[in-house]
């Protein structure tokens, strides 16, 4: 590792973080929101801006930036303006702990999982104050719904991740990746030991909670355009709406990245293929290959999230709560117990 000055490192980290937030957002919006959704509805989607409409996103961003930044007359203006930024901040904080390669990470600390779960709820605060400060009944209902929903689904998410933590014996995301790729299934190490095999229930619960956390259909009641117009985003326009929009899809990308780290082996490839056995022995090219592997896994996982989004109708608020508390929480508790018992047995 080349020694860099602190400020160079910081600059690189900020740039890398921006890329790691914007790139997934752009990919998801173009690949899934523009193209996959259109194909599923037997139309072609945007085709005019750039080849196959690939520059459409820039056109949209340009449009939003040109729009007037309007705040409602009776809104709590300062809070109203901060809210979207707060939502986006949570995405940046999340991406900070995601490892992209043996040395390609922003920060690597031992309480990674704990931190990740903690900062993912910062966005709840942003959504809640956006709903409250808009001085709009629909926004208020949407914000309250969002708060209730995000808190309800935080719990199964934490509990499902606990299974992974128990199995790995660490909260460090980098170590979790290592363990999966260095592991073996009953002595066979051809594909390592991705936790999706042992923690399949946990994976399902995690993905469902992510779906809810991202407020994607079938859990999109906070936005629910046929009921609440646009929920907490109703009064936003211009670049503040754009920030909400970026945050929504960037968070989808980041959560897909985290899911791939926790359950699919992250940036790694099974170490047995190249005879690696520890962090030090991993070839340097993995710092380039790792992010590519991560992006591939992210595209697959966020593709599933979006596929579900485009196919399902929305649940009702009370059904959603009931599902979280009566199904997901007990199930994830059982999962933790089973994991703990098996951990002791093996």
């Amino acid at each position: 590792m080349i020694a860099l000055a602190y400020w160079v490192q910081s600059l690189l980290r900020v740039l890398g973080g921006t890329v790691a937030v914007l790139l997934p957002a752009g990919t998801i919006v173009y690949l899934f929101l523009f193209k996959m959704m259109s194909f599923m509805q037997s139309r072609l989607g945007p085709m005019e801006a750039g080849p196959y409409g690939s520059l459409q996103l820039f056109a949209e961003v340009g449009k939003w930036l040109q729009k007037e930044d309007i705040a409602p007359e009776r809104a709590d203006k300062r809070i109203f303006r901060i809210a979207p930024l707060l939502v986006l901040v949570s995405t940046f904080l999340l991406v900070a702990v995601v490892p992209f390669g043996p040395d390609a990470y922003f920060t690597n600390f031992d309480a990674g999982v704990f931190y990740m779960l903690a900062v993912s709820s910062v966005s709840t605060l942003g959504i809640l104050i956006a709903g409250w400060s808009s001085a709009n009944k629909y926004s208020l209902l949407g914000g309250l719904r969002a708060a209730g929903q995000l808190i309800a689904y935080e719990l199964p998410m934490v509990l499902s991740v606990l299974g992974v933590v128990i199995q790995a014996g660490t909260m460090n995301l980098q170590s979790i990746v290592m363990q999966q790729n260095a592991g073996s299934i009953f002595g066979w190490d051809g594909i390592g030991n991705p936790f999706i095999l042992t923690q399949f229930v946990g994976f399902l619960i995690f993905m469902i909670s992510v779906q809810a956390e991202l407020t994607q259909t079938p859990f999109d009641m906070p936005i629910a355009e046929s009921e609440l117009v646009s929920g907490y985003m109703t009064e936003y326009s211009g670049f503040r709406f754009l920030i909400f929009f970026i945050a929504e899809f960037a968070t989808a990308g980041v959560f897909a990245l985290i899911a791939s780290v926790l359950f699919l082996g992250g940036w790694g490839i099974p170490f047995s293929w190249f005879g690696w056995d520890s962090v030090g022995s991993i070839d340097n090219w993995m710092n380039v290959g790792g992010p590519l592997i991560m992006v591939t896994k992210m595209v697959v996982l966020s593709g599933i999230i979006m596929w579900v989004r485009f196919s399902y109708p929305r649940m009702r608020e009370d059904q959603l709560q009931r599902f979280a508390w009566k199904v997901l929480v007990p199930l994830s508790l059982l999962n933790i117990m089973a994991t703990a018992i098996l951990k002791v047995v093996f």
Partner: protein
Amino acid sequence: MTDLADRQKLSYIAAQAADARLNVELETEGMTLNIGPQHPATHGTLRIIVRLDGEQVVWAEPSAGYMHRGYEKLTEVRTFPQVTALINRIDWLGSFANEVPFILAAEKLMEIEAPPRAQYIRTILFELSRIANVSLFLGDLGVQLGAVTPVFFAFRDREYVLNLIEAATGGRFHPNFDRIGGLKDDLPAGWLAETKQVMKRLRGFCDEIEDLLFGNEIFQSRLRGIGVIPADVAKQYGLSGANLRASGVDWDLRRDQNLPMAWDKADWKVITHPDGDSFARCWVRLQEVRESTKIVDQLCDSLPSGPIMAKVPRIIKVPEGEAWVSTENPLGEMGYYVVSKGDLGPFRVKIRSASFNNISIVPWVLRGVYVPDVISILASLYFILGDIDR
């Protein structure tokens, strides 16, 4: 009142109690929410004023009239041929079906009857407009419940039906094809064969919607047991069409009336459902599209040859008298009470449109439900704004 859903009864009592408690104990107030006139869920400009306790509706009332165009008055200063051009804008999704009862009423006054071929083509176009109308409902239902994809399927396959209507009549949305004594024109060559192909496609569309929406457990949990309307309440509020049949009332004007149309020449059945909830209403409509495709298929096969116009004077003067004709339109019973004084135009036309009566039950059925259910119940009641406000 029998069969009131337990949940609904309980929530109504809870709402009453909540109201009392709000005012006395906590000194908090409920919230009045205006759903509409501009709201994505009302497909038009219907305003529904709901009083909320949390997310529960304590009281609701529809406020219609934002799109009133005064058709009843407009018809008084138009001649009979001009009226048909106007009234197919009442229910703009099933426009041909709007013309038929008016023309039948005028024919009743003039004591003429369209030749059999015209009756068959009228029935085919009537059912095509029902298919175009209800297939859009099936897609829109998805949007109201948050599923984005079904509506595109609906628009895609409705397009084929609209193309058929356009090829036959010249107008995609507003055919203005029905004339007193028959039809404006005969069908173009090759139309029947194409129609049968499209009907096959639409049955495929029904299967697709059934897989995508009706079989979906989330969809079922959103609609089943919600917005239950018992049969006697439905009758008291004057519901008609699929809303009434979904409450278990076997009532269909296509079968029960003896009109000069060709429904009795085809073999089809009236779909009913015992539940009376939102799901039943949507399910009945889905099955009705299937039945309609069957009717169209059979009538295309047995279309008689002959003229399409009875002997009618060039300048139409309807003799003095009054006539009432109603038919089973896509939205329910639609009828015209035509009063003629022997002039070129009608003296007075009373329009009974289905949606206006269908939404009159909204205050009753919305008590005690949650805000998301307000939307799904309204969607399942299926109204068209033009049909409410006329």
